């Protein structure tokens, strides 16, 4: 039995009721539907906002982060007053402000193999708005194992991808991406940046695909991957097929339960018995400041991209972007002590591994990057 709409809801949704593909029955379907949105960041914001406005009866939100000022350029569900608050609480308030007729359930915890099945159980469909591979594979496998669709979106700088994976009738995420790229090959938005509007474009496509599924209308993106480029303003597609060798949705699946996705995705320190960088390979900002004030100064190597130097820089540092480091090793004196740094320490850690594997021994990297230097040593320097 579909739920009835109140007089207030009929007025609120009148522009939907006028669309024959939605109509009164469709709107009642939406009211009786539920969507779990994984992540309330750049993608999760538009997904949740539009689904709430559209009248999806129950919306679940999973996130464990707090709102940071640097989120507000794209995570439009949060506002200035939300900085420092739990994302799920900030998001829930905004959704209920937009539409008090929807139920919003929140989980302020990481989405993991341990809790994912329980959290997702009551929901009809999942929207993948996460920012990391382990949660993307977890969401996919969960959807395959429980027979739910997974509405996918991902963004990088000016590039976006969107897809609709329903393994009951088409390919799943693993059919196209059997394994994640090696850690570090595809930088995160925190390291590489993203056009603030881009997740808005991709997230609204995810919301559209979700609504179409709940209403049972139109042609979904199943079997196609949308590739959007904001710089060229191009929407292109590639065709996806079910992979008969798929480890989760193929005829002979190897993955029959949720696994340890951090290990699968090679999160540093977890996979292949790889040890995290030893403490003698990192230098704190205050310690580095002391060394730079002394006689035997290490040479600073800034592995950020050249355009980042305009935001903040350290005097005397040599700029060798991480992507070019391997081809510029001959410029470095392996006898001299080197300290690598980047924005937060991710890229410099990879640069450090590269130098160590190339035989450099007197090399460390700045813990927390130049942002840590700005917080702990030089408050005049901006944090970004």
């Amino acid at each position, binding site marked *: 039995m579909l739920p009835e709409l109140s007089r207030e809801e009929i007025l609120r949704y009148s522009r939907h009721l006028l669309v024959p593909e939605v109509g009164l029955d469709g709107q009642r379907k939406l009211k009786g539907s539920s969507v779990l949105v994984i*992540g309330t*960041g*750049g*993608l*999760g914001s538009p997904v949740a906002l539009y689904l709430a406005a559209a009248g999806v009866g129950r919306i679940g939100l999973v996130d464990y982060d707090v709102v940071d000022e640097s989120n507000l350029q794209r995570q439009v569900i949060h506002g200035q007053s939300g900085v420092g608050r739990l994302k799920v609480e900030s998001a829930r308030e905004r959704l209920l402000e937009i539409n008090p007729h929807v139920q919003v359930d929140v989980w302020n915890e990481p989405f993991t193999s341990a809790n994912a099945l329980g959290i997702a159980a009551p929901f009809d469909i999942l929207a*993948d*708005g*996460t*920012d*990391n*591979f382990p949660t*993307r594979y977890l969401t996919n496998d969960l959807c395959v194992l429980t027979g739910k669709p997974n509405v996918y*979106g*991902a*963004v*990088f*700088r*000016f*590039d976006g*991808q969107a897809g609709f994976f329903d393994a009951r009738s088409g390919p799943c995420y693993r059919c*196209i*991406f*059997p*394994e*994640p*790229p*090696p850690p570090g*090959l*595809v*930088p*995160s*938005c925190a390291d*590489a940046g*993203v056009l603030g509007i881009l*997740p808005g474009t991709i997230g609204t496509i995810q919301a559209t695909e979700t609504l179409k599924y709940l209403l049972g209308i139109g042609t979904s993106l199943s079997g196609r*991957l949308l*590739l959007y480029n904001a710089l060229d303003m191009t929407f292109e*597609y*590639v*065709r*996806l*097929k079910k*992979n008969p060798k798929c480890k989760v949705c193929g005829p002979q699946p190897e993955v029959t339960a949720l696994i340890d996705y951090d290990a699968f995705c090679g999160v540093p320190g977890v996979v292949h018995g790889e040890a995290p960088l030893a403490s003698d390979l990192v230098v704190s900002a205050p310690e580095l400041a002391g060394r730079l004030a002394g006689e035997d100064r290490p040479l600073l190597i800034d592995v950020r*991209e050249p355009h980042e130097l305009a935001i903040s820089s350290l005097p005397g540092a040599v700029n060798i*972007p*991480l*992507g*070019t480091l*391997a*081809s510029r090793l001959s410029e470095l004196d392996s006898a001299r002590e080197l300290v690598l740094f980047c924005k937060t320490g991710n890229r410099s850690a990879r640069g450090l591994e590269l130098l160590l594997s190339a035989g450099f021994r007197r090399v460390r990297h700045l813990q927390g990057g130049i942002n840590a230097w700005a917080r702990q040593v030089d408050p005049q320097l901006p944090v970004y």
Partner: protein
Amino acid sequence: MPILKVPTPLCSYTAGKAEIRVQAATAGAAMRDLVRQYPALQVHLYNSRGELRSFVNLFLGEVNVRDLQGLETPLNDGDTLRLVPAVAGG
């Protein structure tokens, strides 16, 4: 010559170039020529046994070469191959 379109995340290894002309008669040869021109990509695209890593998705037009003849898929002059990466950002 066929063109190989490289996704933005990999452009930091190709001096910013998104479209690389490759000297190749097959999809596999195109990948090898890409790595010959930009050796920094080798470690990312190939495993230690010299095999293309399985996250690498190569499309000829709209079709995954997996659904054609894999790395043996023949290329014609003017064909466009596209590397489609897994992207995590959200």
